């Protein structure tokens, strides 16, 4: 049953018995594809008088665009912050492994590390298009080291740093920022506003997190170009009705008028955030919600104790903790 050969020789695929995501809803609707593009079956029917060459029964599966993970520390035994033997191979292993989970683009995330580590690792992670062999590498997310030591979470104390000399300290630390696309920093650190401006000018997304900042410190940071919040609720001061801290950014009226949307990462594993807290955030500012995995090297590995990076991680059921403590460390 061919399509109209006068228009195109390519085969037309009709995905039947499926649900599709469109305009923020999931509908029961067929999806038609030709030449790797989604086509309008109504136009095909009436104008081209064409129909499907192949019909595929999706057995009620959902067809959706691939997921984008902007915070993922590793997986399948690979830790981006500490696997130095074959950095490209390690990144590729994760890129391939996450495909089967529906993730087609990601930002390999490096946690607070030493100067030497950044020098070794950052130049080796290249922005790369995705395909059959792995998800797209959008760029690196450097989570730290310019963060609050009180809110470092699973990051090591000896790696905490400040940028009292402004951006030159940043370049000194990271060395090569050509593949950096997201930076998590704590805006209460002195010189933050200058640093934020510099990053934004270079096209890097500035995300606030691992921070003790008050709401007004957060608002200043946003005014200077910060546009993301790293794993909302985690590693920051909690919402308080007299100072909502960074959580309050979701409802602030002080944002600059040209700021499109303030985005916030949420680790939605039912453990890092109580579902009610997630819903409150979502109901306040649904458009900014970005799900992240914050996955660690142990992702995809079975329960037990594993070495990831510089630490031992214990996987108990669904929780990943720093071995011997109660501190959560990603998914």
């Amino acid at each position: 049953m061919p399509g109209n050969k006068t228009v195109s020789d390519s085969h037309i695929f009709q995905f039947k018995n499926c649900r599709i995501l469109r305009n923020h809803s999931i509908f029961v609707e067929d999806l038609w594809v030709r030449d790797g593009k989604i086509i309008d079956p109504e136009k095909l029917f009436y104008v081209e008088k064409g129909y499907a060459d192949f019909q595929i029964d999706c057995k009620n599966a959902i067809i959706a665009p691939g997921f984008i993970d902007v915070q993922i520390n590793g997986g399948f035994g690979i830790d981006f912050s500490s696997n130095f033997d074959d950095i490209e191979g390690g990144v590729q292993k994760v890129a391939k492994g996450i495909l089967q989970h529906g993730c087609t683009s990601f930002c390999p995330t490096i946690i607070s590390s030493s100067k030497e580590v950044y020098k070794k690792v950052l130049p080796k992670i290249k922005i790369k298009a995705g395909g059959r062999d792995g998800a797209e590498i959008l760029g690196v997310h450097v989570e730290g080291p310019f963060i609050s030591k009180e809110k470092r979470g699973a990051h090591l104390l000896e790696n905490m740093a400040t940028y009292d000399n402004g951006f030159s300290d940043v370049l000194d630390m990271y060395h090569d920022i050509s593949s950096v696309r997201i930076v998590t920093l704590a805006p209460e650190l002195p010189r933050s506003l200058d640093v934020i401006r510099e990053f934004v000018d270079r096209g890097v997304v500035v995300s606030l997190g691992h921070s003790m900042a008050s709401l007004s410190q957060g608002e200043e940071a946003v005014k200077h170009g910060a546009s993301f919040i790293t794993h909302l609720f985690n590693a920051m001061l909690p919402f308080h009705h007299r100072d909502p801290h960074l959580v309050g950014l979701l409802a602030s009226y002080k944002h600059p008028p040209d700021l499109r949307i303030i985005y916030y990462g949420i680790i939605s594993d039912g453990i890092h955030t109580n579902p009610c807290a997630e819903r409150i955030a979502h109901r306040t500012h649904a458009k900014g919600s970005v799900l992240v995995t914050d996955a660690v090297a142990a992702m995809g590995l079975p329960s037990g104790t594993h070495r990831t990076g510089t630490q031992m991680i214990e996987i108990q059921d669904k929780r990943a903790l720093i071995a011997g403590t109660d501190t959560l460390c990603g998914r």
Partner: protein
Amino acid sequence: MRLVILDNYDKVSEWAARYIKRRILDFEPGPDNYFTLGLPTGSTPLGTYKKLIEFYKKGELSFKYVKTFNMDEYVALPRNHPESYHSFMWHNFFKHIDILPENAHLLDGNAEDKVAECEHFEEEIKKAGGIELFMGGIGPDGHIAFNEPGSSLVSRTRVKTLNQDTVEANARFFGGDISQVPTEALTVGVGTVMDAREVMILITGAHKSYALYKAIEEGVSHMWTVSAFQMHPKTIFVCDEDATLELKVKTVKYFKGLMTLHNKLLEEKSVEPSSKKTEE
């Protein structure tokens, strides 16, 4: 005429769909012998379309050798506008079944030369061998397709200006904004439908009851264009209880009494009694 009276809308939809299915199956359509079906749009036939889709999904009916001709389409409304009759037919019928695109005929309300488009449509019907079964509805003013009161009873496919009542009634589909409602349409004529070998008119709801009364208990009149079918050799009116509210009790009783006969029309043609004995 036959007047099939059923309890409610759902029963009407089911009966009508089963009748169409029976007619197609009995016809045994094939590549040299297409079944030609005339089709309406609107809320009345929706239930029937749903049922026909069910039959197709169950594998009981195929539209592979069926050619369809729709009654009408708005003028100057983009083909993919959600209120166009092309959209209606695609979303409510064609996309769910196995009809071939070249066999689904609809008038093009955006044609350069509308008169030529209408003449071409009549040609296509002729080329297809005429219409085997034309399904239609009835407006509250007794119109069939867009043949408003005053339309010639021997009219053919042509451009019609819609009357104020119709435009107002349609405003609800255009966000209540009358200025958005099309004022012209291309429509098959009364004569075009009369040429069909069989006609089936669906009428449901109390708001259509006066029109049904005028159509079948009063005379033939161009003011109630559906009344023209009193002159057609094979017409079935399928309606629900509410649509009979303006009819004489006598009329209703008479036709209800014929229900057993009407239901026989839905049955598969039975084999000769002698060959049945071997079943034991």
